[in-house]
């Protein structure tokens, strides 16, 4: 009796909880919010309740003219797949996502009537790109041939009042890349100050800075001007990056360094240096390239030294030294399966998890292997730069070759907000083409409100018939089973609300099936009980034996259904059949609760009642019209306690 008592309390608490959950249409405890506009606050699918109706227009624009470009069928399909994935990941139940015409997308989201929520879910931003950021890259400017150059002479800069661009150090020829580490610490601003020192020197002053005067042909000068513009832009960008980082330039690493012109002059002796100090001269085709101090000495070279190296017929070659270079590797947001914030398993620090699809996994594996190999060979530490619409999100270094397609991005200063924001932006960037919202409406249930209201009433009629049948046929146990069935329905709905499960017609099918199985479990138990009563056992032992005998059938039936659910869910998840998945989840919940309802709730009720006075009314316990049963249950049982 005490054990049943405890169970009764447990069941009562469950019923109370379920009632509370369903009684309040909207529940909000801290961050935990559940509820919707219908009476029980259940999340209902598009077929049952309706939701948002959004029409998006593909808006792939020409970067120059801003005109909308045509999109291909493949691009639209890719867009649809991405959005399907994204909406499914949000757990919003089954959306309807269809292509409209050749360049529009219809999205219906169940239950969402808040347009901002829907929009943030779909995201409108476009292009996420992963690029390989190589450090210390020397790019030959082979567009310059010797035909472009008229003459190369050493000369003193006549007038340094003109604005002078800073120089860096002079390299011995073989160390262009390997000494890059020292280059990285000298910065645009600091060298500008030191190299500006000789300001005011006159043409005859031996201390005046020496420059190499290069006279180009007209076409050569045009090409050289393009290079100079690029270097100037790069210098400005480098300064902006430093300011954006908010750290001293020495800590900013390669990001703080602008690209430089790498100049090699082959004369009697090779002269090679990097500089960004290039001054246009009076003639538009002549440029003065300032020669920086020779390595290991702060002294600027003298005119004689430079002339000595140049000799009579010097040849000049240009290259561009880039502290870092981003290289397109064909890895975009379309290859990213998902990105989500989580915690580092060991340290608990916030990190961002990223997962690639098959193609992405392949590219990413190759990329990380290359980077690690390069690092091991001492050729510099490359990064993976991630851009969203050409804005750099983050450029992590690679710690190990990653071949499994899943990686985490971690950083020393990662806060929870930073991680959330980053994951959101990565997710947002998975759209293969940009889209614009062109229509936004609320939409009614597909199955029709009128039709559904009728169906709900019909469902209650059906349930009522079941309860009536059970009561008439099985008498008192039937009444108890009916009560436990009602509790069952309440528990299932409460669980759906709490998780929350978006209930669609497939969910309703699963509920009907699981109600059927719950009824079946009760019927199995009662049939067995009846047999035991007929065999002359006492009421309590009939109940116990009836349960024991019915249990294997209930267990195996339900377990095989749960196995079916698990396999359907797993397959549907891999194959992207979200309706099948929804069915599997709701059925699994229904079956789990149905087992609990039959075994715990009905059983406790029966035992509880069998110890009460009702146990003496033997004809309450057996189906009508069965003779030869009543007299066998002679002694009232369960009174011993």
């Amino acid at each position, binding site marked *: 009796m005490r054990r049943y008592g405890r169970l009764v309390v447990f069941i009562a608490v469950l019923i109370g909880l379920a009632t509370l959950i369903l009684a309040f249409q909207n529940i909000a405890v801290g961050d935990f919010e559940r509820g919707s506009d219908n009476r029980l606050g259940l999340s209902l699918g598009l077929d049952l309740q309706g939701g948002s109706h959004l029409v998006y227009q593909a808006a792939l624009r020409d970067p120059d003219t801003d005109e909308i470009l045509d999109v291909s069928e493949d691009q639209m399909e890719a867009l649809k797949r991405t959005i399907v994935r994204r909406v499914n990941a949000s757990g919003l139940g089954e959306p309807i996502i269809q292509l409209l015409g050749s360049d529009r997308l219809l999205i219906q989201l169940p239950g969402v009537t808040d347009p901002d929520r829907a929009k943030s879910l779909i995201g409108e931003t476009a292009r996420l790109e992963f690029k390989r950021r190589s450090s210390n890259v020397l790019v030959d400017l082979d567009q310059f041939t010797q035909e472009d150059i008229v003459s190369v002479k050493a000369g003193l800069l006549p007038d340094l009042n003109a604005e002078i661009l800073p120089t860096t150090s002079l390299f011995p020829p073989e160390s262009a890349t390997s000494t890059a580490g020292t280059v990285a610490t000298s910065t645009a601003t600091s060298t500008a100050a030191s190299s500006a020192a000789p300001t005011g020197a006159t043409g005859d002053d031996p201390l005046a800075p020496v420059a190499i005067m290069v006279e180009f042909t007209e076409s050569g000068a045009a090409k050289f001007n393009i290079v100079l513009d690029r270097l100037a832009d790069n210098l400005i960008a480098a300064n902006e990056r430093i300011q954006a980082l908010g750290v001293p330039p020495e800590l900013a690493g390669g990001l703080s360094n602008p690209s430089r012109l790498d100049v090699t002059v082959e004369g009697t002796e090779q002269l090679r240096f990097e500089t960004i100090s290039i001054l246009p001269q009076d003639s538009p085709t002549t440029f003065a390239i300032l020669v920086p101090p020779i390595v290991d000495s702060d002294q600027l070279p003298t005119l004689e030294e430079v002339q000595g190296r140049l000799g009579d017929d010097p040849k000049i070659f240009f290259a561009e030294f880039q502290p870092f270079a981003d290289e397109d590797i064909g890895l975009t947001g379309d290859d990213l399966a998902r990105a989500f914030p989580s915690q580092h398993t060991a340290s608990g620090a916030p990190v961002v998890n990223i997962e690639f699809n098959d193609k992405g996994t392949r590219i990413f594996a190759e990329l990380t292997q290359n980077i690690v190999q390069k690092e091991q060979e001492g050729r510099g530490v490359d990064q993976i730069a991630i851009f969203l619409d050409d804005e750099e999100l983050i450029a992590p270094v690679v710690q190990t070759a990653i071949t499994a397609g899943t990686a985490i991005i971690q950083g020393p200063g990662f806060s929870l907000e930073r991680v959330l924001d980053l994951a959101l932006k990565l997710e947002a960037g998975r759209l293969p083409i940009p889209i614009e919202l062109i229509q936004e409406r609320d939409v009614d249930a597909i199955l029709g409100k009128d039709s559904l209201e009728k169906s709900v009433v019909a469902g209650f009629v059906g349930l009522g*018939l079941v309860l009536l049948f059970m009561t008439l046929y099985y008498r008192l146990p039937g009444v108890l089973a009916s009560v436990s069935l009602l509790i069952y329905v309440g528990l299932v709905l409460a669980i759906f609300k709490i998780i929350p499960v978006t209930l669609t017609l497939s969910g309703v099918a699963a509920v009907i099936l699981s109600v059927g199985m719950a009824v079946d479990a009760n019927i199995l138990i009662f049939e067995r009980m009846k047999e035991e009563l007929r065999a002359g056992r006492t009421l309590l032992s009939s109940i116990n034996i009836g349960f024991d005998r019915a249990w294997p059938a209930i267990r195996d039936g339900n377990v095989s259904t749960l196995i079916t659910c698990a396999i359907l869910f797993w397959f549907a998840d891999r194959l992207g059949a979200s309706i*099948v998945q929804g069915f599997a989840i709701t059925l699994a919940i229904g079956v789990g609760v149905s087992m609990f309802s039959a075994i715990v709730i009905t059983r406790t009720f029966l035992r509880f009642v069998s110890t009460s006075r009702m146990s003496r009314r033997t004809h309450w316990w057996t189906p009508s019209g069965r003779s030869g049963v009543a007299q066998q249950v002679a002694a009232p049982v369960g009174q011993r306690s």
Partner: protein
Amino acid sequence: MDFVGKRGRFFLLSLAVIIPGVVFLAIAPGLKPGIDFTGGSTLTIGFSDPVDQSDLRAELAILDHPDALVQKLRVVDNEDDVYFVRTKELNDDMKAALLDGLETALSPSGLEELSFDLVSPVVAAETVVNAFYAVLAAAVGIFFYVWWAFRNVPSPFRYGAAAIVALLHDAFIVVGVFAMLGVVADVEVGTMFLIAILTVIGYSVNDTIVVFDRIRENVLTYPNRELAEVVNLSISESLGRSLNTSLTLLFTLMALMLFGGQTIREFLLVLLIGVVVGTYSSIGIASQFLISWEYGDFRRLLRRRSSGTSAAA
């Protein structure tokens, strides 16, 4: 009642339903895929007169669009009743006929075509194929579970195999019936059908296992009795439960069919057929399959056929 002795009749009865179903499946168009799978056209229509969703659906059925999906759009700045209609692919003539028909029947003051587009399928056709594979995988899982759960009785794997046979039997009957309805009554199948089939399969397995449980118990209680006798006894003993369980489900489904909305009737029809067939197959197919295997019916059948062919040669 002697169930086991009539197993030949059970098998013939099932074949009599399955074979025409398979024939209808094989000949075009077989199962008629609905617009969920094929895509079609969408129309957004603004009606000047107030129009009820159910009236619109009924009128569309009259105008030869019985499977059209109709959703009301709530538009803030528009007094008209605006509906979003998805139906089979329309050419200009069909669209004009549709709009004229609706205008005449529902909105004499006029209607406005707000948008007209081709629309892609909601559910890719491969979803059906994928669901099929998922069901196959689930069948394998069930086979192994039943085999394990019946490990204490002789030849436990036969129970697993019999459960799968009953499952396939039920699925084939329901799909076959719908293939026939597709040809005869132009019934189309959509995602609802897919879900209904999954539900039927779930019910079928559960029901079969309940009957098998009784056989398991009786085989262990009466180890010396003939299997045929034990199976017959088990079916008789569990008949009350089988009938009561399926009756309760049929009550619910009938109530929904009779009083419920029009939109889920096709779905309920699948479930209704499925419950009847699922209950029947546990007794008439799954259990009899065990007997036939035990007594070598299949071997005899094969031998008879092979001896027939050798005699002919």
